[in-house]
């Protein structure tokens, strides 16, 4: 335990007068307002935070920001459990409770740490190589249980999330000096400018260092009209300058049901990336031990949070930045034992006053397992000077910087390698996006400010954007591995990828950096390799004798940092996930005891069970009463489209199987709708209301697709036809009266005598009226009974049902739901498109082969019906099935197959019900060569059960169709 709080004035972010108490693995610890969980843990001397992904090695806090690979915890907040939170970003609040990840029973004594001994069995790509005998499946559960990080909550998330779209002229991403200068200049130039700052306060490095100039810069930005958004992280740049960002609304404790995150979708004319740079770690044996961290992070913990991460510091370096940090740490009162610089003297371009500096020296070993207790300094070549023990308690890594080029790359920008500073920087600008400051490879503060201001001004006023004056980082060495050392040297700390894994990949000829990434998983963890990507590709270059520029980087893709599912889902949860359509007469149905279920997007009555009656029994009773007397049905969801225009008839001939142009006014005809592949996609009834006026009924689920298909064919192919398509489903209610006493019931309440079955034939339509109410009455039937579909203004549906109700019930009838309808249509052998048909069904397969013969039009899908595959005699065809024993219901979806599985299926059951009329099961099926197999015995197989069935003649009920006519 060696962390401690420094005395004032250090600690620009913390408020010493506001203590906070929090829990870590059940222990009560104290922090201060303004702390992050990481800074508070370090202040309490907590080094060991969690166990690593694969090898269960002890890990601690490594950085002070978004790049954190190892300081990962689960946050538990009341009923919430947020897994894999980076402790470096979690703002401390009273009552915060954090728990270590991937360890059991505890982080200090972890059974899984035995994996460290098993490391030789777990090299890169181990799942392709080891645990192969006898089978990977034997080992997989254990391996999966041992790997991973935090645990997700099993409870529903009670927080709310929302989504906002915004348009801006200039969107600046990053709240440091570069971002502030660019945003201010853009706003002063008249551009609507928003600045996104990922942390709780803008100001960047200068801000936490306490530079007095920064407050003035922030004030100036606000005066210029810049909208500054804090705790807002841009995670992706998408097509046409769309930037997505998440705003954390609950930086502190959340109340259940509170708005937690907001997803912003910014459409920007210009984007400025000012995301800074990430320090590159050094690579040496034991470089993952708790107590090893990035040099800049220790500097920030000291200045921003007043936390000394250790007392005696050794800095491992291969860049000039190490010396500045050494000086900075001395100034806060930390003892710097030595800077161990990997480079020869001739390459070192800086020094720190009063700090011992050893050139051409590296760390050969870290002493201490769960906390650093010292290190052994060795000559970089392994032999020229004797090893020396340094009794440090903190080892800092200063390997140079990697500019945050992610957004530039996401936007389509190219990168170039700057050899002197060993870094990739943007090569020019990305389309729509300009980088400024450290993420552009520009480091000296004065030059950053000047360049950023010029960029902001140019974007606002439309001037040429000035190129980035890259430089100012000093010299840094790309190669940072210690070739002679023993022990694991880590590249990717979060995914436990070591130098040896990259070496193995190179040995096995995974030379492409994309292959390296997939094979070793380097850079694929939740930190997306922010501290490992450049080291990995530099190392691959060394191992394959190529320059980093030649090796290149993997493609940067969104998201830049993890995004919660909640933020992406927003309000689209619960009843808003898939909003349901409700019937206009929903209250009437509820009052009649309807049992509602979801059919497509509709909330509809499945049946109307009486007290004590099951859904099945209710449907049987309802179906029986339709056959015996009369039933009332709300068919309002039925798709309805009106077609107008002189070419409407010709158009319908081109859309449907079945000729519609020969219909006289008042006549109706069944039609099948195909797609261009010849597949049946919808069916329904087309009725002619006048010369250039048609009424088209589609399936309830298919009306939107059908209307869209009509529009597409009209607008894109049959462009000469004059037709107007008007979907009217929601305009008309549909009350269906059905059964032998249907007309009797209608006549009893006063419907026009002209609608009587003897004057209005089956498959005709009449414009009629009921009192003042205009009606379109269609005689068509999906049940095989005399049936009137009364289309009326939708808001009158409930009233019409209520008017007919006594006349129906007075004749022994009832109201029926979808379940009864399914029974009735199956008894008649009528198909339900999408249930009995699928994406392979052609009209010939369901008995419509002859419908094509007399027709001339080259209707949609027709040519596909002439392909050899369409005429294959082995095709599945619709048949009616009955169980051989006359009693056993054939399960819907069951396969038809002879022999013992696994065997080739020759079809499947598509609809199956108990028929109340026959008091026996009835079923429809798709069966190979079905049309020629009448009378054949087949075998239906279901979960190991075999049921014998017979192909029978459809329909099961009223084969001559006499009932249709009443």
């Amino acid at each position, binding site marked *: 335990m060696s962390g401690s709080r420094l005395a004032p004035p250090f600690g620009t972010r913390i408020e010493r007068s506001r203590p906070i108490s929090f829990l870590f693995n059940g222990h009560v610890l104290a922090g201060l307002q303004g702390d992050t969980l990481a800074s508070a843990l370090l202040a309490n001397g907590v080094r060991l935070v969690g166990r690593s992904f694969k090898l269960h090695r002890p890990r601690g806090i490594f950085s002070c920001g978004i790049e954190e690979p190892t300081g990962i915890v689960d946050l538990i907040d009341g009923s919430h459990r947020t897994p894999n939170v980076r402790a470096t970003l979690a703002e401390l609040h009273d009552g915060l409770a954090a728990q270590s990840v991937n360890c059991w029973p505890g982080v200090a004594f972890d059974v899984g740490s035995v994996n460290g001994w098993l490391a030789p069995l777990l090299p890169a790509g181990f799942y392709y190589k080891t645990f192969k005998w006898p089978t990977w499946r034997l080992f997989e559960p254990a391996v999966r249980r041992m790997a991973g990080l935090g645990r997700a909550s099993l409870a529903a998330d009670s927080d709310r999330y929302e989504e906002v*779209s915004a348009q801006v002229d200039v969107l600046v991403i990053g709240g440091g000096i570069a971002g502030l200068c660019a945003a201010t200049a853009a706003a002063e130039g008249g551009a609507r400018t928003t600045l996104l700052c990922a942390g709780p306060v803008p100001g960047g490095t200068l801000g936490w260092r306490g530079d007095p100039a920064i407050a003035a810069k922030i004030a100036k930005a606000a005066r210029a009209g810049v909208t500054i958004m804090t705790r807002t992280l841009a995670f992706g740049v*998408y097509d*046409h300058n*769309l930037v997505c960002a998440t705003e954390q609304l609950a930086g502190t404790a959340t109340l259940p049901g509170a708005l937690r995150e907001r997803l912003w979708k910014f459409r920007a004319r210009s984007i400025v990336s000012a995301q800074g740079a990430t320090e590159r770690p050094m690579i040496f044996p034991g470089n993952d031990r708790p107590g090893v961290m990035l040099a800049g992070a220790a500097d920030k913990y000291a200045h921003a949070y007043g936390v000394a991460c250790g007392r005696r510091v050794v800095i491992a370096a291969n860049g000039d930045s190490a010396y500045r940090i050494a000086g900075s740490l001395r100034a806060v009162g930390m003892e710097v034992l030595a800077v161990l610089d990997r480079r020869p003297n001739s390459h070192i371009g800086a020094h720190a006053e009063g700090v011992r500096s050893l050139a051409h020296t590296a760390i050969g070993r870290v002493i201490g397992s769960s906390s650093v207790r010292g290190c052994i300094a060795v000559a970089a070549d392994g032999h020229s000077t004797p090893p020396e023990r340094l009794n440090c308690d903190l080892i800092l890594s200063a390997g140079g910087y990697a500019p945050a080029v992610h957004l530039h790359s996401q936007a*389509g920008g190219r990168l170039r390698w700057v050899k002197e500073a060993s870094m990739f920087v943007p090569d020019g600008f990305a389309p729509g996006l300009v980088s400024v400051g450290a993420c552009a490879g520009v480091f000296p503060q004065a030059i950053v400010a000047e360049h950023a201001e010029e960029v902001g001004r140019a974007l606002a006023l439309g001037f040429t954007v000035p190129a980035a004056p890259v430089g100012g980082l000093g010299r840094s060495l790309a190669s940072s591995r210690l070739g002679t050392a023993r022990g694991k040297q880590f590249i990717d700390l979060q995914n436990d990828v070591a130098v040896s894994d990259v070496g193995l990949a190179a040995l096995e000829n995974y030379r492409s950096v994309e292959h390296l990434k997939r094979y070793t998983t380097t850079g694929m963890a939740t930190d997306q390799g922010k501290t490992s990507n450049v080291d990995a590709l530099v190392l691959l270059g060394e191992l394959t004798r190529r320059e980093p520029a030649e090796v290149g980087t993997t493609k940067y893709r969104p998201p830049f940092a993890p995004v919660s599912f909640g933020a992406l889902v927003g309000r689209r949860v619960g009843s808003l996930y898939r909003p349901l359509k409700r019937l206009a007469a929903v209250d009437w149905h509820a009052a009649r005891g309807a049992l509602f279920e979801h059919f497509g997007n509709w909330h509809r009555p499945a049946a109307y069970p009486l007290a004590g009656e099951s859904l099945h029994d209710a449907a049987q009773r309802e179906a029986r009463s339709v056959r015996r007397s009369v039933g009332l049905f709300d068919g309002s969801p039925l798709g309805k489209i009106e077609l107008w225009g002189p070419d409407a008839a010709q158009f319908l001939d081109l859309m449907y199987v079945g000729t519609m142009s020969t219909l006289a006014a008042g006549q109706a005809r069944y039609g099948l709708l195909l797609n261009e592949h010849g597949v049946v996609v919808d069916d329904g009834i087309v009725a002619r209301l006048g010369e250039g006026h048609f009424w088209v009924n589609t399936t309830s689920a298919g009306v939107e697709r059908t209307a869209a298909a009509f*529009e597409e064919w009209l*607008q*894109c192919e049959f*462009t000469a036809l004059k037709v107007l398509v008007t979907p009217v489903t929601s305009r008309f209610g549909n009350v269906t009266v059905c059964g032998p006493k249907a007309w009797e019931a209608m006549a009893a309440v006063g419907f026009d005598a002209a609608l009587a079955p003897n004057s209005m034939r089956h498959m005709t339509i009449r414009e009629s009226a009921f009192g003042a109410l205009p009606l379109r009455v269609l005689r068509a039937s999906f049940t095989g009974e005399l049936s009137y579909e009364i289309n009326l203004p939708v808001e009158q549906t409930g009233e019409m049902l209520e008017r007919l109700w006594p006349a129906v019930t007075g004749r022994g009838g009832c109201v029926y739901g979808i379940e009864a309808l399914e029974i009735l249509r199956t008894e008649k052998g009528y198909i339900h498109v999408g249930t009995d048909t699928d994406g392979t069904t052609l009209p010939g397969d369901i008995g419509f082969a002859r419908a094509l013969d007399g027709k001339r039009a080259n209707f949609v899908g027709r040519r*596909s019906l002439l392909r050899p595959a369409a005429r294959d005699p082995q095709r599945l065809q619709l048949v009616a099935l009955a169980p051989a024993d006359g009693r056993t219901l054939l399960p819907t979806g069951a396969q038809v197959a002879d022999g013992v599985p696994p065997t080739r299926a020759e079809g499947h059951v598509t609809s199956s019900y108990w028929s109340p009329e026959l008091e026996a099961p009835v079923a429809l099926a798709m069966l190979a060569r079905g049309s020629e197999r009448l009378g054949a015995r087949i075998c239906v197989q279901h979960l190991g059960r075999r049921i014998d069935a017979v192909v029978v003649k459809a329909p099961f009920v009223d084969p001559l169709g006499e009932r249709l006519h009443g």
Partner: protein
Amino acid sequence: MMRIPCILCGERDESEFTCGGTAHLVRPPLEASDREWAEYLFFRDNPKGVHLERWRHSYGCGQWFNIERHSVTHEISSVYAVTEPPPR
């Protein structure tokens, strides 16, 4: 997500549109060979560069129209009616 210029309504977010794929396909007559019909149904160029394609402003005016779009940069260089010939 792109910004797509509807031929009637102007620029809108891509989420308001439906893509109809390659434009200017010619629908063969009933007498076409199986090969010609298969090419019409299934064979498409996949250019790295300029692509002519159909879009519908489904959650807007409902109009179908053609655009010329670069498949790498997504730059939309032309918007024209379905019945118009391709640009250039």
